């Protein structure tokens, strides 16, 4: 019994130690980085393609960790990184850290009702207020379907 318990203890000690992993999902493999501003300015060049972007994590889904917003390389710009629930879970501690994310650029045409529904849901998640009257038309949403990420310093 003593040998058995010692073996278990050794295996546990030698296993890779992790607090919150700084690599998520498939990790980051692409060599070339794409500027977020470039994706925002010319989405037609990137939709459906896999890109690597980096930026400051300015917000994290507070319920499931299923999305983050990355700040763009220009002022007042950001892009949403959406990941499959459970596959990648971003911890709240990622806020304020620089992240490198890899994923496929997506463009979604939303009706006014869909925009209202999404913003209402986002407001509920972030605990902020939202007035549906501020939405006057549908819009095109640009986002990255995140496949992997690396966040140093976590």
């Amino acid at each position: 019994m003593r040998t058995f318990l010692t073996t278990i203890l050794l295996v546990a000690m030698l296993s890779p130690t992790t607090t919150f992993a700084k690599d998520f999902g498939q990790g980051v493999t692409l060599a070339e980085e794409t500027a977020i501003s470039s994706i925002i300015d010319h989405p037609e060049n990137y939709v459906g393609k896999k890109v690597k972007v980096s930026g400051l994590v300015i917000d994290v889904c507070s319920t499931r960790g299923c999305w983050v917003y990355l700040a763009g390389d220009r002022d007042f710009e950001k892009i949403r990184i959406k990941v499959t629930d459970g596959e990648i879970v971003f911890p709240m501690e990622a806020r304020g850290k620089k992240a490198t994310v890899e994923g496929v650029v997506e463009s979604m045409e939303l009706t006014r009702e869909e925009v209202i529904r999404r913003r209402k849901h986002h407001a509920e998640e972030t605990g902020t207020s939202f007035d549906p009257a501020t939405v006057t038309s549908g819009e095109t949403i640009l986002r990255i379907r995140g496949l992997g990420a690396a966040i140093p310093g976590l």
Partner: protein
Amino acid sequence: MKWRRWNYLLHRDIGFLCIGLTLLYAISGVAVNHISQWNPSYRVERIETNIGPVLGDPADAGTVRMILARLNEQGKLESSYRPDRKSLQLFVEGRSIMVDLASGHVVHDRAIPRPGLREMNFLHLNHPKKAWTWFADLYAVALAFLAISGLFMIRRKTLRRGLVLTGVGIVLPLFFLIVYL
């Protein structure tokens, strides 16, 4: 030694080994089952305050220092972001401080980990990946062994009750499948 004796000994000792993990998965299971109603790993604390209008250039380090001083913030500034011309977002040790420059209204967000639950969810949802994946697989195999070996521990005296309860345990998930699938 007879196989029944081996079955009993393995069931008992593997059962002991599984107690800790079963409790971990059970507690975390309830917590993450209700993920649509709450964040099972963090509690988000939001404090709103007002520091008065911020007149300086938000891109200037002096202005940022002044904001932090007005907030009496002692933590280390990690980074900042301009969501729009009217606001400035500061990150101090994992906390978010959103400042409306004109009004001085500040929303201070802090994610506080739920002690114990965050760690249990971390393991339950297999965030560590790596060796934990294999360990969790091993635990699943152990649970399957406990279930099957338990069947062979049914004695003649309790055979009827054992079969009925085992049947109920199998039929219940099938019932929910029929209703919801």
